[in-house]
């Protein structure tokens, strides 16, 4: 009776899978995310048409058998550019979330392990960063550093740091009070070693969920920056840039705005559903009860 919510890792993963299959949101989210990654990978080796093959006579064509999603202002294939744009979105978001987690998690873990002055400094830095509206500040940063994919990664990444730092600190603090951590201290282990061996493995599931959600936000942010002309620069394909170009042609060729818009919407929706599904799945309170 007293064994609620405690299981061996391998069995836990099997159980997650069995339970996850039962949740429509989770299955849909996982499916969309897998499709996105698959499309991006395929585009690296093959696209229906070369992504920057200009074909002025066939410009602004609506969807057809040859061009499934039509062509843009220069006659380039929209589907091919969307596929290649997925690579761009994933790459930018992945690195940005990587920066956020890579710096935020150690900072949060450090704050929880050290407490005192270190914690004060880390958390005040967090509050400082949180106080700025994220997208506005990203615009500011790219305006200062100059537009481009690398700078938009940095801008998005910086605003992911406090999210992960705060989450890590909060979750770690409650673990530091647990007896098994106290036992490790009695055993003579230092704070760094305890963090690596006990704290981080026990908050990993939480971090994974947060990463999924931050990933969706980063995709939105990247599209926003590109739309404003501050992100990925032409001729590299980017969903945000495609929307920007479509804007003036809305009445002539609405499909140019609809398909990139749909791509962004479905991707963000899918990632959010995946994150929500994972959150439900990994929440120990919702785990199988005996």
């Amino acid at each position: 009776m007293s064994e609620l919510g405690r299981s061996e890792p391998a069995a836990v993963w099997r159980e997650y899978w069995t339970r996850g299959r039962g949740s429509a949101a989770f299955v849909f989210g996982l499916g969309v995310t897998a499709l996105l990654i698959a499309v991006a990978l395929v585009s690296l080796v093959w696209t229906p048409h070369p992504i920057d093959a200009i074909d002025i006579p066939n410009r602004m064509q609506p969807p057809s058998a040859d061009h499934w999603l039509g062509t843009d202002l220069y006659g380039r294939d929209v589907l091919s550019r969307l596929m290649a744009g997925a690579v761009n979105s994933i790459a930018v978001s992945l690195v940005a979330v990587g920066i956020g987690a890579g710096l935020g998690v150690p900072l949060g873990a450090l704050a929880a392990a050290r407490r005192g002055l270190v914690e004060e400094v880390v958390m005040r830095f967090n509050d400082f960063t949180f106080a700025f509206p994220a997208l506005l500040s990203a615009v500011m940063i790219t305006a200062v550093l100059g537009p481009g994919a690398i700078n938009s990664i940095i801008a998005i990444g910086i605003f992911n740091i406090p999210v992960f730092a705060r989450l890590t600190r909060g979750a770690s603090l409650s673990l530091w009070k647990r007896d098994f951590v106290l036992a490790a201290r009695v055993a003579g282990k230092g704070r760094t070693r305890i963090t690596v061996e006990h704290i981080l493995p026990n908050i990993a599931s939480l971090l994974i969920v947060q990463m999924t959600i931050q990933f969706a936000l980063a995709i939105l942010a990247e599209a926003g920056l590109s739309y404003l002309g501050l992100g990925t620069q032409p001729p590299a394909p980017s969903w945000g840039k495609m929307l920007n170009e479509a804007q003036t042609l809305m009445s002539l060729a609405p499909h140019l705005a609809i398909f990139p818009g749909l791509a962004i919407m479905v991707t963000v929706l899918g990632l959010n559903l995946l994150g929500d599904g994972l959150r439900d799945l990994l929440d120990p309170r919702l785990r199988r009860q005996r």
Partner: protein
Amino acid sequence: MSGDDVLLKVENLTLDYALPRRRLFAAPPRHRALDDVSLTLARGESLAVVGESGSGKSTLARTILALEAPTAGRVTLCGKDVFAASPGELRKLRRHAQMVFQDPYGSLDPRRKVGWIVAEPLDALERVGRAEKLARIAEVLGSVGLKESDADRFPHEFSGGQRQRIAIARALITRPDLIVADEAVSALDVSVQAQVLNLFMDLRESLGLSYLFISHDLAVVRQVADRVIVMRDGKIVEEGETEAVFGAPRHPYTRALLAAVPRIGGPRRRAV
């Protein structure tokens, strides 16, 4: 008591906690969790600290193991001042004193196998080869009545009593002189509690261990301790040989404590 026989000496230990500030610029109020506590534990002796919640008994245990820093006072373990020791020296001292916690579910990392958990103090404190490590794991698992093959299983596969055996095995692996047991049997069912108490007694005989039992359960204390210290509000109110304290308590608080313990065969409250 000659100097050699003293394993642990606690002198005038005082510990204040800062409470949240009441006003922004006022000094934060303080709570005195330990108030001038002194005690001595001889090698091979079993000493119990009893008291109710808030008496400071658990804080005392944690401070002795250098998990909390005292406001004033000294703790001397094996002749060395724990709070004057360098980090390296402190690590050497930790081999001599290990701890067993109350909750057998919370004190074992659910993500680690038993072998890893049991060997944790060894990994942190000593440099031993793989073969010796495995031998030591097998040795301590054997001495608490578990099988060598249990090292490959996860904590959730064990019952509460078995988990407490695992926690005891972890405490034994550095071959310590002192085990601090903080309410180590109070979360266990009666029949399992008796098994674990017997194990403590067996280990004391076979390994010559000293115990510091922190407990609220007077009946348990009576069976395992040579001497008893009664604490209240961070202070020691009574101290003496176990049977003397139980047979003829001097302090009114000790008397009240003993009178409150329900006894089979004692007075009854309800006839219908």
